[in-house]
């Protein structure tokens, strides 16, 4: 195709790509500049300080505590979500009475925002008047109402459970796709050859859905790592930073403590981490599509 012919398609592409590059490129460039300069409370960059902002950050125990909690959060939410989603998708891909209703209920939370989920759970878990306490008291599972969100030791695991609940629908969708792509005749052959359901799952199903497991892991790591709303709404990272993960701590460092330079350094490192997982995702997704 000659040059003039390419003008039109590139003119059609340009606005989309320009918007993406603007909305992501400008912030990244700005964060890079700020992370190596001194920045005052009003966000004006001063002297070049090299790696000082990074070393200040590395000397901050709250940063490390949030970092450690982010690892726990991401690993627990991701693994919990996948361990629930595989059997659920397996059941939902069988034929049984009321399957479409069950499927609808399982997938529904995808359309409801994390914010709404967070708000409703915050009330459900209310230490005095919450509905969960109403249930627990009624069935005699506790004789005192439980203050679910008052301490980090209880609030953080509770947040993890809610994070899992929020992530299950999308992951179930991925595995529903995986199970529907399985070749039926091979499984019929295995059954005729006398393979039990457990062996079939272990030696046939799992290896065949492996690419989908990879995609589900990477996607969930990305979502869990980025998930701000659930923790912010439940506890705002409190009490006393005891439920902060990196994204919530980042927000505080930048907008509450006003340390823009350190926050920029932190933000950049998180962006780099995210980019690695996005590249992994792109690789898995590309390979899946090539099949």
């Amino acid at each position, binding site marked *: 195709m000659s040059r003039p012919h*390419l003008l039109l398609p590139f003119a059609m592409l340009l606005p989309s*790509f320009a918007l993406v590059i603007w909305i992501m490129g400008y912030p990244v460039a700005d964060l890079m500049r700020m992370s190596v300069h001194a920045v005052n409370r009003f966000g004006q960059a001063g002297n070049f300080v090299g790696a000082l902002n990074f070393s200040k950050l590395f000397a901050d125990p709250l940063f490390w505590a949030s970092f450690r909690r982010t690892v726990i959060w991401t690993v627990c939410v991701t693994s919990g979500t996948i361990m629930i989603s595989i059997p659920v998708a397996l059941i939902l891909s069988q034929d*049984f009475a009321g399957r479409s209703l069950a499927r609808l209920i399982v997938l529904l939370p995808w359309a409801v925002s994390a914010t709404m989920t967070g708000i409703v759970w915050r009330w459900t878990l209310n230490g005095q008047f919450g509905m969960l306490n109403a249930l627990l008291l009624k069935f005699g599972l506790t004789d005192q109402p439980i203050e679910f969100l008052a301490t980090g030791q209880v609030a953080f695991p509770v947040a993890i459970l809610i994070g899992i609940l929020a992530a299950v629908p999308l992951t179930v969708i991925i595995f529903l796709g995986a199970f529907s792509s399985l070749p039926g005749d091979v499984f019929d052959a295995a059954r005729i050859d006398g393979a039990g359901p457990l062996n079939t799952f272990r030696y046939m199903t799992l290896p065949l859905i492996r690419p989908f497991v990879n995609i589900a892991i990477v996607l969930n790591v990305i979502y869990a790592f980025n998930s701000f709303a659930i923790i912010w709404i439940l506890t705002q990272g409190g009490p006393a930073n005891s439920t902060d993960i990196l994204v919530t701590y980042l927000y505080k460092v930048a907008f509450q403590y006003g340390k823009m330079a350190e926050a920029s350094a932190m933000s950049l490192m998180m962006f780099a981490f*995210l980019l690695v997982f996005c590249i992994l995702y792109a690789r898995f997704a590309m390979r899946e599509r090539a099949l």
Partner: protein
Amino acid sequence: MSYARKSILFWLLLSPLLIMVLLPYAVMLSTALKPPTEVFTFPPRWLPETIDLSNFTVIWGKIDFGRALLNSLYVSVGATILTLLLAIPAAYAMARYTLPARGALRLFLLLTQMISPVVLIIGIFRMMSAQGLINDHRSLILAYSGFSVAFAVWMLQSYFETIPREIEEAAHIDGASWFASLRHIFLPLAMPAIGVTAIFTFIAAWTDFILAFTLLRTPDKLTATMKLFYLVSGTYHVDWNEVMAATLVTTVPIAVIFILLQKQIVGGLALGAVK
């Protein structure tokens, strides 16, 4: 195992998850129907003694929730329109022309659709304030589109590729102009994909937290999500009956859209780069 037995077993196995999923809706409904006096009773009760529908009327005046819903609608529809206007031509170009560096372009789309605004939020805030767009709905529309357009292009392209070129070529041979064949042949065929893409963009905008939280300032500009968040986080006393009524009002329309279009949405999620 008989069909009936199998069905019962599967429902039993799913029940813990189903209960956890439905619990928030039950809580919303239970609280939203209670009069204020019944909300703060100890021990808490599930069923309201008197059903009070006034929570659903009070929220329009007292917390100006109608305006918040309109704000949400405005930014979500705005973002959806802008995203489609940008993404449809781009996806068409990707699907119909032999472009140099096509692989690189696709990789760029795949990578950037996974980037979330959270890690860039400081930079986005500074950029928008440099443009004078803080507390301005246009900043949200631009940002939502910026973070949705890569996914939209990706998804539309994969669908556009399934529409055979021959149909358009036949129209050309019959003397239709390029624009006429685009408008009368291609776009109607592409409508289902455009619809699903619109729904994704709309839901992403409607459910956003971090961007609205960072870019909006005054109560009159808040989206429904933000309004609710400030109601439960700011003040010491929370009128949970009103909050739950408002939450229900915000959630139900989206849930209905999802229920009606479940097949298309799930299909879209599974097909177009699982987002």
